[in-house]
């Protein structure tokens, strides 16, 4: 009966889903950055997120001020980016993407192990000073924290877009993404570009790690949030920041609506696999994702 339909509740689920989707997008953007410049799906993004959040919270717990802890953690992520470029990417230049993917898989285990070795296995709370209590807007309850996270994500997307479009190094990224050989031929320094892009992915991991860490607590499970980003990437395209945002919104909204309105018919708990159903359905229609670059090859 449509008359019985609770529209306010529907809107609440929808808005909640969209805001959750923004959180997925934040993780997905880290993947996109690496993929755009090297064509590699960086499976270590989740581990980077864990490493960044654990480093930050451990410093704060030792009395380091928030801003300084942020700066030190960012420096650590840059150092990791440089180390990865030197020890993993450079020796594997021009190797098939699957080799690089396997390398990032190995990296994720190394980073997870290193994070626990250095900072221990304890679970930490992380308070960013933002209330996570419901805010009532027109009869709909919306989380203040989710609104803050959405604003941070929007700011980050804006910054990255400007960076890619208007800075020299940003343009170099795009050139490398288009054709590594051609970029090398015209004198672009691939190692510098890769180091920079891994540092940028480190910054995204740090920001996403703090926001997810404030939600879940800083613990090993943070590295599992990559699972939330994968359907977003399939849907939005692996090489599009805009795709990561739109994909995140679509996945977040559809999985929440599905869980609430049709989950009961399947015994509940469907949102995880439903996100992949949505992503795969899009994949059948647009194999490169909504905003991914179509691969054109001469034969």
């Amino acid at each position: 009966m449509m008359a019985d339909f609770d529209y306010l509740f529907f809107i609440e689920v929808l808005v909640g889903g969209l805001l959750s989707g923004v959180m997925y997008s934040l993780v997905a953007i880290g993947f996109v950055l690496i993929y755009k410049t090297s064509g590699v799906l960086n499976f270590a993004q989740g581990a980077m997120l864990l490493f960044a959040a654990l480093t930050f919270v451990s410093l704060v717990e030792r009395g380091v001020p928030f801003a300084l802890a942020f700066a030190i953690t960012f420096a650590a992520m840059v150092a990791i980016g440089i180390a990865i470029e030197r020890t993993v990417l450079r020796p594997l230049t021009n190797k098939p993407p699957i080799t690089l993917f396997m390398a990032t898989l190995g990296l994720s285990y190394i980073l997870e192990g290193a994070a626990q070795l250095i900072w221990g296995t304890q679970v930490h709370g992380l308070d960013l000073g933002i209330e996570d209590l419901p805010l009532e807007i027109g009869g709909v309850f919306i989380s203040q924290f989710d609104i803050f996270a959405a604003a941070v994500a929007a700011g980050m997307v804006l910054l990255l877009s400007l960076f890619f479009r208007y800075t020299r190094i940003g343009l170099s990224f795009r050139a490398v993404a288009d054709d590594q050989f051609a970029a090398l031929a015209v004198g672009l320094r691939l190692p510098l570009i890769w180091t920079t892009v891994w540092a940028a992915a480190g910054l995204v991991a740090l920001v996403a790690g703090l926001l997810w860490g404030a939600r879940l607590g800083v613990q090993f499970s943070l590295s599992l949030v990559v699972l939330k980003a994968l359907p977003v990437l399939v849907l939005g395209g692996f090489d599009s920041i805009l795709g990561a945002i739109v994909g995140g919104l679509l996945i977040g909204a559809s999985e929440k609506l599905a869980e609430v309105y049709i989950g009961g018919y399947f015994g509940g708990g469907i949102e995880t696999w439903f996100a992949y159903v949505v992503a795969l359905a899009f994949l059948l229609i647009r194999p490169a994702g909504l905003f991914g670059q179509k691969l054109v090859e001469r034969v």
Partner: protein
Amino acid sequence: MTIISKFKAVALSAALSLSVALPAAYADEQYFPLQSYRVGPYAAGGTGFFGGFIDYLNLINTRDGGVNGVKLTWSEGETQYEVEKGVEVYERLKSNPGVAAWNPLSVGIAYAMIDRITQDKVPLITINHGRTDSTDGRVFPYVFPLLLNPYSETSGIVNYIASKEGGLEGLKGKKIVVLYHGSPYGKETIPIYELLAQKYGFELQQIEVPHPGNEQQSQWLTIRRAKPDFVVLRGWGVMNPVALKTAAKVGFPVDHIVGNVWSNSEEDVIPAGDAAKGYTAITTQASGAEYPVVKEIVKTVYDAGKGNLEDKKRIGSVYHNLGIVNGILNVEAIRIAQEKFGKRTLTGDEVRWGFEHLKLDPAKVEALGAKGLFHSINVSWDNHEGEGYVTFQQWDGAKWNVVSDWIAPDWALLRPIIEKSSEAYAAEKGIKLRTAEDADAVSTN
């Protein structure tokens, strides 16, 4: 602890896990193979539990010279809570002499070991967890879900909620939502909640959270719309703090959420911050370091630099105390078995006999320095749970405080359901039901 010393600790742990040079089992040694998990997603629980267990074994060796002169030994194999690694560690450690019992603290690993340990005739301890029907010793001679099986836990929680509503009669017409982890562990109690809802007349809604549970917005919006009187949180790992935070986010009162036995630790509430203040959870063992046995561990083990926990602040935490209680139960089972079979290294089957006669009344528990830490246990050859009592603790933002008396689950109601399930398992596997005489026949090799 410095990074270097941590590295040494991890290297030592790795070396132990690979070691073949385990202490030789003399006539006066009893060995515990430990499938521990000190890294990976559940390391916080693993380090607490195995830390407490080892601390107690250390106390017995240091203070008493072992159990009646029989020294307790152990070695660890890292499982990261993964079933295949747990089985690998089992295969590696099972042939060491003098194995007393297995204590994996993992439902998955325990399930994978049931047939193996039954063949080996060595007890498998699944304190507070495991399959409910393994309570029936007629069908599962070597499995011991000590203190609390999932059905007793359910009954204890419902009885506690009833106490808040003026007794079992007060449950009539109330609404309870069970938010459970989407895993075999989470689903184990679905039928018993349905049965209790029918019996006591409360309305029930059971909602699944997909693993790992780091997103629960839709579940909690559904809960808010259902307007339940209580929510039971049957969570695990990250699902627990996320549940508490999301409850706050949708405005559900935290003091109307009751956690189960795997949603009751510091690790479950600290990440939730203020959202966890006022949250209540069931437990079989109280937390805190004020109990004489914990104080003795501090004095004898930690002050001598032999403590297992890296961070002394975790002494007396929920998992640490669970490990200590687990140590008490293992050691006392050996002691009881020694009274019958002699003060020497026992076979696994002799230790099984000891567990089947493990009766610690409140006076004995007090004599062991554990008054208030846990209530009592009364294991028999056909009841491998041992009628553990439960209590409830509330988080105040810094520590857990006990807020109830010791509560007895409704064992009489549960026993026929357990027997029905275990008998079906026996029929499926072609297992002949054991008798009291069978239980008394003990293998000495």
